[in-house]
C-alpha cells in the first residue's frame, strides 16, 4: 500500500473520530441544558469555530504520529513528492467531495422549505461535511488503486 493510500485511510478515521466525539460532547452539553442548540444560533457559530480549531490541531498531531509510525514500519523517512498524477487525483477527489457537500446543502435547503426546524441545517452541515471528507479520501484511494 502506498504512502498516499495509507494517509487517506488515516484521514478518514481521523475525520470520523473527531466529528463523532465532538458531536457527542456537544449533544451531551445540550442535553444537560448548558446551551440550547434548537434556538441559540450564536452558540452554533461558537461550536463550529471550536470544532474547526480542534479538528485542525488533532489532524496535525495524528499526521505527525502517522508519519513517525510509517517511517518506523517502512524505514523510509521521506514523504513522496507530489507529481502530476497525485495532483490530478486530488483534483478529481475534490470534485467528488464538492458534489457530496453540495447535494447535502441542497437537501438541507429542501428540508427547510418543507418545514424542518432551522437547527437541522447546522446538523446537516456537520454530517455532509464528514460525508464530503470521506468522499474526498475514499475517491483518492479508489483512483490510486484503479487508475485515473
Amino acid at each position, binding site marked *: 500500500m*502506498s504512502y498516499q493510500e495509507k494517509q487517506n485511510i488515516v484521514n478518514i478515521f481521523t475525520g470520523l473520530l473527531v466529528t463523532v466525539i465532538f458531536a457527542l460532547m456537544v449533544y451531551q452539553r445540550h442535553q444537560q441544558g448548558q446551551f440550547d442548540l434548537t434556538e441559540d444560533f450564536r452558540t452554533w457559530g461558537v461550536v463550529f469555530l471550536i470544532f474547526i480549531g480542534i479538528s485542525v490541531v488533532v489532524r496535525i498531531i495524528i499526521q505527525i504520529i502517522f508519519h513517525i509510525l510509517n517511517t518506523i514500519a517502512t524505514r523510509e523517512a521521506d514523504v513522496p513528492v507530489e507529481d502530476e498524477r497525485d495532483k490530478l487525483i486530488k483534483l478529481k477527489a475534490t470534485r467528488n467531495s464538492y458534489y457530496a457537500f453540495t447535494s447535502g446543502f441542497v437537501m438541507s435547503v429542501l428540508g427547510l422549505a418543507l418545514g424542518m426546524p432551522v437547527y437541522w441545517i447546522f446538523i446537516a452541515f456537520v454530517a455532509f461535511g464528514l460525508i464530503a471528507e470521506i468522499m474526498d479520501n475514499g475517491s483518492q484511494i479508489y483512483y490510486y488503486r484503479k487508475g485515473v
Partner: protein
Amino acid sequence: MALRSIITGRESEMPKSNIQNNIRRLRFNAGEMTQQELADLVHVSRQTIVAIEKGNYSPSLELAFRFAHIFKTPLEEVFIYKPDDK
C-alpha cells in the same frame, strides 16, 4: 451507473485507454533501469511509473516528452495510440 461515472470520472461505455506504451521494454534496453531510477530521472514517483506501465494512467504531454528524451527515442516509440476499430 450515474454515481459510478461521477466517482470514476469516466463514462460507463468508455474504454480504459487507447494509449499503450513500451516503457518496460525501453527500461530493459536501457541497462535494466529500475522503475525508481526512471522515476527520479523524469521527476515523478515510482507509483506513477507503475501506473503508466500498467496503463492505469496516461501522462501529460510534457511527461511523455521527458520519457522520450530520457530514452533518446521518438515519442511514438514510447507511446502508441491504438484507435477503436469502430
